[in-house]
């Protein structure tokens, strides 16, 4: 496991890989990430940076992942070096630095690293469509219909003022839509996140400028990976 991680981290810190290698490596990385030990690294999205065109441009991915996400990773590494947080897994760093609301300095960076990892994995090329199986059943049970989930999620994402995220979470055996400001994520509330959308302006400014509503509807129509949501739901049900 360690050798795979180091190889990938060496490769990802250089220029972009050809698509096939990328997919192969990142798929193995996705598997490892479930059991990732200590070590904070910039994980690449599980698809090439231009794979989400035309709905999310390559430019956006290059800046959003290559500059913002990378910046959070680098700043976090600098912050935890030599402290007791060094060596902890990312999720544990988040919970420890959340400090019941009185956040320590590492929280923002740690949470943003986690949030962005989660965000890339919440999308896929050729995404969108409708969920199926158990996920759809739960959606119909907790929201009435798929359309009403879409509506509620859209409202949460649109009304998150300033920077933040909107989430579909699994809590208390129920699905819920929540929104959070800046770097906060539902992990600190003990929820199980299933899906997220980044509504920080850097996520959509290059493609949509001020039209956040268009970005949200494009995300839900064309980008969201319901497969990822379903598999996260399976994992969450085991834990509940």
């Amino acid at each position: 496991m360690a050798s795979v991680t180091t190889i990938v981290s060496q490769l990802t810190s250089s220029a972009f890989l050809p698509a096939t290698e990328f997919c192969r490596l990142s798929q193995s990385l996705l598997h490892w990430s479930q059991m990732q030990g200590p070590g904070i690294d910039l994980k690449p999205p599980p698809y090439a940076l231009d794979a989400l065109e035309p709905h999310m441009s390559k430019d956006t991915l290059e800046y959003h992942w290559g500059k913002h996400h990378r910046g959070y990773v680098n700043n976090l590494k600098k912050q935890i070096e030599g402290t007791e947080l060094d060596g902890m897994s990312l999720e544990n760093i988040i919970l420890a630095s959340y400090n019941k609301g009185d956040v320590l300095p590492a929280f923002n960076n740690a949470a943003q690293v986690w949030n962005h990892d989660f965000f890339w994995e919440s999308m896929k090329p050729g995404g969108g469509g409708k969920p199926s199986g158990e996920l759809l059943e739960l959606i119909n049970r907790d929201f009435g219909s798929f359309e009403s989930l879409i509506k509620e999620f859209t409202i949460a994402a649109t009304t998150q003022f300033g920077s933040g995220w909107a989430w579909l979470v699994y809590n208390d055996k129920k699905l819920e839509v929540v929104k959070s400001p800046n770097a906060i994520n539902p992990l600190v509330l003990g929820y199980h996140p299933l899906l997220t959308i980044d509504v920080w302006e850097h996520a959509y400014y290059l493609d949509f400028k001020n039209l956040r509503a268009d970005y949200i509807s494009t995300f839900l129509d064309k980008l969201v990976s319901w497969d990822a949501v379903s598999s996260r739901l399976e994992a969450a049900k085991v834990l509940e």
Partner: protein
Amino acid sequence: MSWSSSNYLCISSSSSSSVISSNELARFDRCRLACESEGHRGKCQDLNRPTNIFAYNSLKPPSFKFDKGQRRKDHVLKKPRNISAYYSLKPPSYKFDALEPYMSKRTLEVHWGKHHRGYVESLNKYLEKDDILYGYTLDELIRVTYNNGNPLPEFNAAAQVWNHDFFWESMQPGGGNLPILGLLQQIEKDFGSFSSFREEFIETALTLFGSGWVWLVLKRNEKRLAITTTTNAVTPLVWDDIPLLSLDMWEHAYYLDYKNDKARYANVFMDHLVSWNAALARMARAQTFVNLGEPKILVA
């Protein structure tokens, strides 16, 4: 009292009279309430006419500034006449390309034309729904809707309108350089030197997480200048401090020009955009309320 002095736009954009009688006010009110329901177009034609208090008492309608052809077209298209606006979108006092190459024309077009305009429109939409907040100046509205830390829904829109007006006025073409006169003296007194002030301002801008603003304020109680940050839409007005300068650190303010390079944006603002003239004028006005000078004690 003159309505044109505040951010009020109440009747029609071509209103030329600056003194409004109470009759006029009542008439506007009735008209506005009538306009809120559809099908009252006839009565609401007043809203499109320039207000002319002299015409009120005469039977002759005032002369129109609108093109008659346009008016007829409106009639034919049966557009609802429920136009009401409470706060206006003030343009910056320079052209959109005047801040090039430090802040591009495209940024001004989107930032002012879409974001700022959006805040004004959403504020007006809120106010349309409910009369209770009608009649405040923008400053007062911000304080009222801030509600001592438990903001009402209108707060974000109102505060952002004010913040952006303030921001455009905090910049000028050919800005930057150094402050002069009393402002420079006060900065040197409170920060040690201009360069340490500048360093602190930029440092503060870079460490602000999420969306917000960086301000140079005059603290009323402590009678000194300070640099503060606020998140999202909050403004130092709600703490009764007097802002002198602001820098918009929402990503939409710099993303088109600088992408993620906040440091370059903040430096360029300080070097080429900031309007020390505006800050000086604001400080001079502030000194009506805050006594900054040493008391002159006469020696016998």
